[in-house]
């Protein structure tokens, strides 16, 4: 558990008892964020009293206009940078000495963030190497991970030899190679073209379904969030906090037909309205 400067204490049992957050299915909580604020040293208040409870197996999209603090929230959830006040906890993870979850978080940045001097294999190897996983065991897991994103034949390629979409796949393989409980994705496909993006959306969805990983996905695309998520958290700016929290009923099988279906269109409509509301709310209050 990581605490900010306020003297609030986080009682896990307390949160579990709260009806809104405990979840109907009573699934385990993976992340609890309570009244988190983040003030940057330049005076920007990125988040103000944001609370979010994430249950195991959810696919959550953090959706909002730029500047609403969704990336900041994701970084705090990852343990990168402590909140200025409020508490963040990972109730079902082993917490290490630094107060961070150990080995349970995979992160995919907006850029692929690969080491240009290392080939694809070594890039995916990194999290395991840092954790001291023996070479033989690591090798199998890396090849398995590369196969899962369709890059088995590119293990010896260097990042600069790959297309943007392929680099992103390497980044996803790297995030998944530690078999994390929580996969955090920070606008991962924003810089990709539409076709590649849709393909990678399907890949992420498949990984989520096959591995049962909990995903928190930051995006500013209504369509992407409506396609992927089991829950969409719409955020507003000034101050950055949760504006509305939408549970989405999704069919297990989502494909090209689903993208043109009335259900999908309807979901997009609801999400879009919520996003408009969030943008409007930020405009009316100075």
């Amino acid at each position, binding site marked *: 558990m990581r605490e900010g400067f306020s003297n609030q204490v986080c009682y896990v049992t307390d949160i579990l008892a709260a009806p809104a957050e405990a979840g109907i299915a009573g699934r385990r909580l993976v992340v609890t964020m309570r009244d988190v604020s983040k003030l940057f040293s330049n005076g920007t208040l990125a988040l103000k009293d944001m609370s979010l409870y994430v249950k195991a197996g959810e696919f959550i999209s953090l959706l909002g206009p730029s500047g609403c603090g969704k990336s900041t929230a994701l970084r705090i959830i990852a343990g990168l940078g402590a909140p200025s006040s409020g508490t963040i906890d990972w109730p079902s993870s082993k917490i290490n000495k630094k107060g961070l979850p150990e080995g349970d978080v995979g992160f995919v940045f907006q850029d692929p*963030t690969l080491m240009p001097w290392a080939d694809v294999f070594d890039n995916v190897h990194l999290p395991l190497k*840092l954790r001291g996983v023996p070479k033989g065991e690591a090798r199998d897991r890396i090849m398995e991970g590369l196969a899962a994103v369709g890059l088995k034949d590119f293990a010896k390629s*260097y*990042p600069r030899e790959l297309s943007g979409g392929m680099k992103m796949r390497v980044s996803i393989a790297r995030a998944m190679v530690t078999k994390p409980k929580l996969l955090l994705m920070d606008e991962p496909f924003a810089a990709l073209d539409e076709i*590649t993006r849709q393909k990678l959306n399907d890949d992420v969805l498949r990984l989520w379904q096959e591995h049962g990983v909990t995903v928190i996905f930051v995006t500013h695309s209504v369509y992407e969030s409506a396609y992927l998520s089991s829950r969409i958290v719409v955020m507003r700016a000034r101050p950055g906090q949760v504006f509305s929290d939408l549970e989405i009923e999704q069919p297990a099988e989502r494909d090209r037909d689903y993208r043109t279906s009335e259900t999908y269109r309807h979901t997009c409509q609801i999400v879009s309205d919520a996003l408009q509301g969030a943008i409007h709310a930020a405009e009316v209050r100075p």
Partner: protein
Amino acid sequence: MTDAVETNREAGTDAAAGVLLPKMPRREKLLQVIVPVVALVIGIIIWHLAVTINQVPRYILPGPADVWDALWNDSATLWPALLVTVRITFVALAIALIGGAGLAILLVQSRILELALFPYAVILQVTPMIAIAPLLLIYAPDTQTALLICAFIVAFFPVLSNMAQGLKSVDHNLLNLFELYGANSWQTLIYLKIPSSMPYFMAGLRIAGGLSLIAAVVAEFAAGSAGQGSGLAFRLLESQYRLNIPRLFVALLMLCGTGIAIFGLTSFVSWLVLHRWHESAIRREN
């Protein structure tokens, strides 16, 4: 037709296969060798003609043939001298590389140390080395050591400043990634900071390589040491005093050759390390 469209859609733009490094056409390669060689030969012919037609005396400007003869006749004197100069150059360069890179690593680890050593670094860097040479000749146990120290001081700073800059220019996202995976500072240094600063280090190496030869020669001029075991720079001065201009030319040619060899060697090392990933070592193709 429909099949082709289908595969295309399936693959998306993502299926662009690994881009292989483009091979240079043979004509281009041949051109790269022939043009410089022909230009050099023309230069030598013009030199020869200018000397013979104008009947310039040998002690003012020897022709290429005289220099060629001197190369064979004086080799017993000049080769050992060249060896002395080359040894000073390479030992100084090696110490500069180890010392410069090592100190840069220390500096970026500790802010206090960096601030404390900064004035010394600036003082040593801006003082013309030749001005310290007389002092060094007094303090050093022998002339060779003094020359070595001179060459070292000159070659040291490009390595230090480039390496320090490189260590500070690590991609912030990659630093975040390492933090996220719980890397300790040792792992971050070995797996991230050092590889990522290699392009900067290589730039330092190439500058330092040239400078260490220049410094070795200049320091020898300053020392003016005669007799057994003196370097090529002294032989050069000596030839001038004796008006043995062909020998002076040979000494010059040898220094020039050494410079070229150092340039080639450092460029090759740089290429070896960087050619798989860094932009500087890859041909641009549009």
